[in-house]
Each structure stands twice: as C-alpha cells, then as structure tokens.
C-alpha cells in the first residue's frame, strides 16, 4: 500500500509539474523599494520641472514610465506640460515602442510623423486620429490624415482637409502670440495647397489656380507655389503667363529660392512657343552655370559626411561666410522650414538649460545627460539639412538629363525644318501686349526692369507663338 501511495504521489507530482509556472512574487520589502524609487523619480521630475530644467525632468519622467511600463494620469499631465516646453525633438531620443504605451497628444503626433516617414499609413492614421479636437495640434493632425488619404487615393481626404482649414483658422484667430499665429496659418495654407494639387492631378487647372491665388504673397510657402502655379498655366497652354511666373524667381527678393525644376519648365514653355533659339540658349546657360555649381556642391557634400557639420549651417552663431551660392541659397530656404524652426528652438532651449545648470554647478551626471541630448539633437537637425542637400543635388542631375532631352528635341525640330526646306514664321518672335492673356480684374503695366514686391507673381511674357511654318523661298 505504501509503495502504491509513493508511486501515485510521484505521478501526481509529474502531472502537476507540467503546468507549474515558477512565479516569483516580490517580497514586501522589494515592493516597497520599487514604490519608493518610483516616488523618487517622480519627485525628481517635478523638482526639475519647477526649476525649469525641462529636459532633465523629461528624462526622470521617462525613466519612471519605463520602470512602471505605463503612465498614470498625474504623470501624463506633467508629460504634456514638459513637452509643451521642450517640443517634440527630445522624443527622438526614446524608443517608439516605449512611446506607444503612452496616450498623449504630443506623443501621438510624434508617432504619426514617425510612421508616416516609414510609409506605415495605417499606424499614421491611428495615431493622428487620437489627437482630440480641443488639442492645439488638432489642425496638424488633420493635415497628416488628409495627406495620407490623399496619397492613398482615398476621396475621404477632403473631409479632413476641410476640418484642418476650419480648425486652423479658428485657432489662429484665437491666439495672440505671433509665433502660434504663423504656425496655424502655415498649416491652413498647406491644407489649401493640397486641395489645389488634387485639382491639378484631375486636370482642373483653372480651378486649381484659383485656390493658389487665395494664398497670400507673404506666406512662407508662397515662393514654392509659383512653380506649381506655373505648371497649371503650362497645362492651360498659357506659356507666356507660365514664363512670367517663373521669371519672378529672378527678383532679388526671391534670389535664394532656386528651384531646379523651374528651369525645365522655362525651357518647355519656350519650346512650345517654338522659340527654339531661346530654348537652346536657356539650356546652354543651365549647363554652363548651374552644372558647375552643382558639381562644387557635390564635392562639398562628399567631403563633409558628419551630420553635426550640417547643423552649423542652421546655427546662427556659426558659418556666416559661405561662398558657394547654392549652399547659401539652401541655407536660407532651410531656415524658413517649420521643422527646422521648431527643432532649432528646442535645441536652443536645451542649450540654455545646460548653460544655466553648468553655471550653478550641477552634478556631472546631469550635465553629461544634457550634453548627450544636445549632441543627438544636433545630429538630428544636421541629418535633415544633409538630406536636403542630397535631394537638391539629385534634382540638379534629374534636371540636367531632362534638359538634354529637350535639347535633342530642339535639334530634331530644326533638322526637320531644314529637310522640308521650311522655316519658322519669324526668327525671333518678340513680345507684344496682344499676346498677354488677362482676366477682367487684371491690369497691364509694362516691365521697366525693376521688380516691385506687390507685382511679384503676376508677371506675364507677351511672346508670340512662332510655330507657324512657311516655305523657305517664300520668306526670302
């Protein structure tokens, strides 16, 4: 009987052991220690927040969140306050996996941007949708959703863009700070522009242009819109107006806005007016002037590969003597980008925090953390600048290949005329008021060689189309 019992007990032990999970319950002592360390982290976060050491406070708060694998209501409130001071740039220092556990509008917006970059549009929409209407970033979140849907070809994008325009307008009129006003105006303009872009894609060029005209000339995005508007006129076969808009880039006010694509469009406009000599001159100029400059820029980018080096272009205190005109132009363009402005603002605040703490004689550990944060921030901004430089070089290469195609086509046309013993109606058809298309509310002033700020973007050439072919003998 005893042996039976022993065997039975052994069997039951084996059966039980299969399901047994070894769980280590924290002892009361350990639990107490964990609680007290959590309390300590929170206390430190609050203390630093009160002393306006926002980055350090954020560090302790995130350490607490990581430890507890989540965030309490009280901690989330502090997080919102901190992020409103630091901006979203410090969030790049933390793992997106950790950030996903936090339900906070700032973090949702950051994650939406993070997944948008990765082209994970489902997650982008999920995070952007979680930003409530009451939040100050609601228009931006709507813009992200609208753009995502637009890229995916979903017609629902219109609803989100409408919400974006409406909310941005409302919030812009409700704030007094100029900085915030500019921010909301920029978001609103972006939503309006996306509407115009959609109409262009659907071949509704006149309606698209009407929306572009609503954007004020003082808007940050306005110089870039000139090119898009010029494309609309090109599609409407109003080559003179398209050339006039592109000529605006020659004005001293817009000298830093060199957009390589505008050179292709200029050449295409001349080509379509059958002004082959003008097209050839323009292409020649491009290859002589811009190609060399771009080669210089290429050499410059190849030489400097460190992201932190590019940060210096944005930092106002450094690198004021830039000789390369492209680098200068890119620097000026970048300084007007929202992302650069927001991130550089965050960096400056962190630098001030570091300098203040250093002067106070803060602990080595705190200073080292801030140094590390600043380095990462510089790299992040620098990488963005670097990306822009690479994008610009690629654009130049692309334009060069397209310009070459236009040049070949011009040669081919000229050869055709020669073979058919024909010539164009005029060697150089020049401007005339008759060739300017204008609306009933537009006035006509002749260009006297000077650019006036209020006239920018309203220029039109008066070139006559030279596409009529005549027999060579008749002309002579």
């Amino acid at each position, binding site marked *: 009987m005893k042996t039976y019992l022993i065997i039975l007990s052994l069997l039951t032990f084996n059966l039980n052991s299969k399901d047994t999970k070894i769980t280590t319950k924290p002892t009361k002592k350990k639990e107490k220690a964990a609680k007290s360390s959590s309390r300590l982290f929170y206390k430190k976060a609050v203390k630093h927040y009160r002393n306006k050491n926002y980055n350090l406070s954020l560090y302790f708060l995130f350490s607490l969140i990581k430890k507890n694998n989540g965030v309490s209501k009280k901690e989330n409130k502090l997080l919102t306050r901190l992020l409103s001071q630091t901006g979203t740039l410090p969030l790049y220092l933390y793992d997106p996996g950790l950030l996903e556990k936090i339900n906070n509008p700032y973090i949702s917006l950051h994650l939406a941007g993070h997944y948008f*970059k990765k082209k994970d549009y489902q997650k982008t929409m999920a995070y952007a949708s979680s930003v409530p209407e009451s939040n100050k970033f609601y228009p931006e979140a709507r813009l992200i959703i609208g753009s995502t849907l637009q890229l995916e070809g979903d017609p629902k994008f219109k609803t989100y863009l409408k919400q974006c325009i409406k909310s941005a307008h409302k919030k812009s009129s409700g704030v007094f700070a100029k900085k915030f006003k500019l921010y909301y105006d920029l978001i609103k303009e972006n939503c309006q522009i*996306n509407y115009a872009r959609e109409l262009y894609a659907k071949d509704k060029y006149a309606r698209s242009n009407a929306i572009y005209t609503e954007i004020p000339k003082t808007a940050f995005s306005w110089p870039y819109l000139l090119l898009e508007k010029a494309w609309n006129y090109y599609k409407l076969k109003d080559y003179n107006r398209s050339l006039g808009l592109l000529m605006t880039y020659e004005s001293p006010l817009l000298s830093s806005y060199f957009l390589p694509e505008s050179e292709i469009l200029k050449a295409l406009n001349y080509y379509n007016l059958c002004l082959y000599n003008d097209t050839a001159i323009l292409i020649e100029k491009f290859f002589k002037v811009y190609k060399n400059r771009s080669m210089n820029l290429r050499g410059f980018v190849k030489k400097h590969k460190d992201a932190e080096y590019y940060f210096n272009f944005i930092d106002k205190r450094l690198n004021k003597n830039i000789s390369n005109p492209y680098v200068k132009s890119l620097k000026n363009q970048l300084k007007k980008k929202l992302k650069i402005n927001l991130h550089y603002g965050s960096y400056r605040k962190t630098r001030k925090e570091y300098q203040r703490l250093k002067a106070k004689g803060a602990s080595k550990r705190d200073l080292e953390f801030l140094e590390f944060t600043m380095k990462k921030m510089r790299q992040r901004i620098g990488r963005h600048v670097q990306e822009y430089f690479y994008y610009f070089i690629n654009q130049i290469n692309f334009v060069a290949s397209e310009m070459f195609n236009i040049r070949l086509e011009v040669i081919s046309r000229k050869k055709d005329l020669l073979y058919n013993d024909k010539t164009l109606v005029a060697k150089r058809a020049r401007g005339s008021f008759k060739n300017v298309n204008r609306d009933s509310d537009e006035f006509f002033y002749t260009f006297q060689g000077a650019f006036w700020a209020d006239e920018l973007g309203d220029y039109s050439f008066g070139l006559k189309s030279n596409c009529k072919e005549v027999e060579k003998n008749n002309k002579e």
Partner: protein
Amino acid sequence: MGKLYVITFIFLGINFSFAQEKIVEKYVKRQRVDLGNMEIEGEVLTPGDLSIQGDKRKRFRMRLYDRDDFKFEIRNDVLNLR
C-alpha cells in the same frame, strides 16, 4: 593446310572487294571565254527616267518631362512638419 589457304584467299577476296577505288579528279588548266561572241536574249523593262520612291520619313518624338501630380510635394510637406 589446304583449308588454311582457302580461308586466307577468301579473306583476301573480301578485302579487295571492299577496298574503295581511288578517284583522281583533273581540272582543265586553261579555259578561253570569248565575251564578244556571247549574246543575252530578253526585253528591257527599266523606266525611261531615273526615279526614286522613298518611304515617308518616320518622325520619332522624345517624351519630354511632364508633371502628372504633386504627390512628392504632399509627402514632403508632412515630413517637414516635425
């Protein structure tokens, strides 16, 4: 012995019968052609005037740059937000 002679002769006979004959080809060393005596019979069918009828010249046109949409700009604008 007699049998051996017979068999040898039979084999030799077969060998001779299968052996190929050597053909030696000889070419004429010189041939004289009198072109003046040659005559060609037929009718002249060529037109009186010299004319060339060429195919119509095919015009190849290059596909020049054209913008279909601004999708790149839409994406870039969002990437430049934050």
